[in-house]
């Protein structure tokens, strides 16, 4: 599903953020990208949803090499990818339900399907009862669950999560992790970037450990 082939990403200034990174993620995998702050995790994820293009090497998603994609084709790629951020990025002037259905509106889903789907994903993250509240009135963990619901709304086959627990206490973090595992168990490929090593204690997870832009370790957690 995702292939990185000798990918180097050099921002205009300074050292490369990624150097000569190669790996292969198959459909249905659960991959945790780990590494200290500044190791290149965010850069790696941004290369997957083509927010960035590599300085050299190839990034292939679903059989398409992203650097060859025109900007017109990028939306179609992103419709197949759900993205979750550390800072949630919920729209403050919209209710929880509107934050979720916003995505479907932007994809021109019909109203009835939109409503149905929004209710379903909110139920699924356990927030159906907060549908008409403002995001600011929710706790951090709840806000992140809304963000996950939003990322899932358009039924992506791939979910990217960049430090989704970075703003949460350990208990909430484990809750979010549990949610991501559940999403994975339903067949979605999940790539999670985190510097929080406690998140990968669970078994069966693949860890790609980055350090200063290089893959230091790529292993299956026993």
């Amino acid at each position, binding site marked *: 599903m995702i292939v990185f082939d000798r990918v180097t990403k050099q921002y205009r200034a300074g050292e490369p953020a990624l150097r000569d990174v190669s790996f292969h993620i198959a459909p249905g995998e659960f991959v945790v990208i780990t590494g200290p702050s500044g190791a290149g995790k965010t850069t790696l994820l941004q290369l997957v949803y083509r927010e960035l293009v590599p300085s050299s090497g190839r990034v292939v998603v679903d059989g398409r090499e992203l650097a060859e994609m025109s900007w017109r084709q990028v*939306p179609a790629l*992103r419709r197949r990818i759900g993205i979750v951020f550390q800072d949630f990025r919920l*729209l403050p002037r919209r209710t929880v339900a509107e934050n979720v259905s916003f995505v479907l509106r932007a994809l021109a889903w*019909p109203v009835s399907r939109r409503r149905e789907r929004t209710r379903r994903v909110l139920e699924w993250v356990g927030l159906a009862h907060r549908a008409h509240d403002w995001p600011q009135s929710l706790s951090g963990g709840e806000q992140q669950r809304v963000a996950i619901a939003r990322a899932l709304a358009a039924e992506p086959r791939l979910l990217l999560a960049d430090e989704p627990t970075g703003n949460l206490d350990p208990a909430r973090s484990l809750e979010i992790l549990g949610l991501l595992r559940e999403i994975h168990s339903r067949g979605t490929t999940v790539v999670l970037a985190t510097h929080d090593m406690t998140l990968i204690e669970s078994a069966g997870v693949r860890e790609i450990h980055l350090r200063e832009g290089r893959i230091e370790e790529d292993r299956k957690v026993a």
Partner: protein
Amino acid sequence: MNFFRFSLEILRSAVVDLGRRPISSGLSVVALTVALFVLTVFLILMHGVQDVLTRWSDQAAIEVFLSAPVDDPQVVDLLARLEQEPAVRRVEAISSGQALEEFEHLFPDLGDVESLLGENPFSGSLRIVPAAPDTQEVSRIAKLARGSTVAEAVRYDRQWLSSLARLGRALGWFMLVGAVVLLFASLVTVGSVVRLALDDKREEVELMRLVGAPASFVVGPVLFSGAFLGLLGALLALGLAAAGRHFALDAAEATSLGVLAELILGRGLPAVEQVAIAVVGALAGTLAAGLAAGRAALR
């Protein structure tokens, strides 16, 4: 993706964007209304002046007052010469008796003029109807007639007409320049409204890009907002111009300007041009929005 539903979403989004800043949206509509109102009034005046010119030329005649009776050989000769001019449609000889009759017919209240004055005060005349409303030709014919010894006076309405036309045109151009300047200014306000709307939803736009909303979903509402403001301004301007025209006609009716007002404002703007104003408004708004948002909306 369903095109119709997609367009509806874009339209809805445009209205929501504008509704978020009602005051600046309103101001830009007012600015557009003023500009397009001036443009509309310009067109109405131009049509009015044109109408006056054509109507005059339909009825216009050069009147050659004669020092001799109409059956005088020199008059007959002048009439024959004038009739040969290609710029002349026809020449009528009006005897002093006919002139008196005409006068009495036009002003029946004055009673019997001849018995009042003891004689017929009118001289005979030749009434020349020009073939075309060409002021140069008309004055050439007038000059030709004036050269004859039996022509006592030549009278035609060229001066009144040309000064009216000149005034109308000058006023018209002034208004056109004003309209263009105002339109430009109002388009700047449309641009800034659209840019504000875009700033307001920067986060949304960012999110739309992340979830793979097509570029048209970002740009569409911007262009629609501009078109919407432009159209609204145009419709208000047309409404205002129509109301103003009726008001002016009503106000002028009782006064000595009534006839002139009726002549110039009577017909109003043809439907085609009203539609054209609306289209110009919408297109200009769209263009202003597109330029203002520019690549910010695309990227």
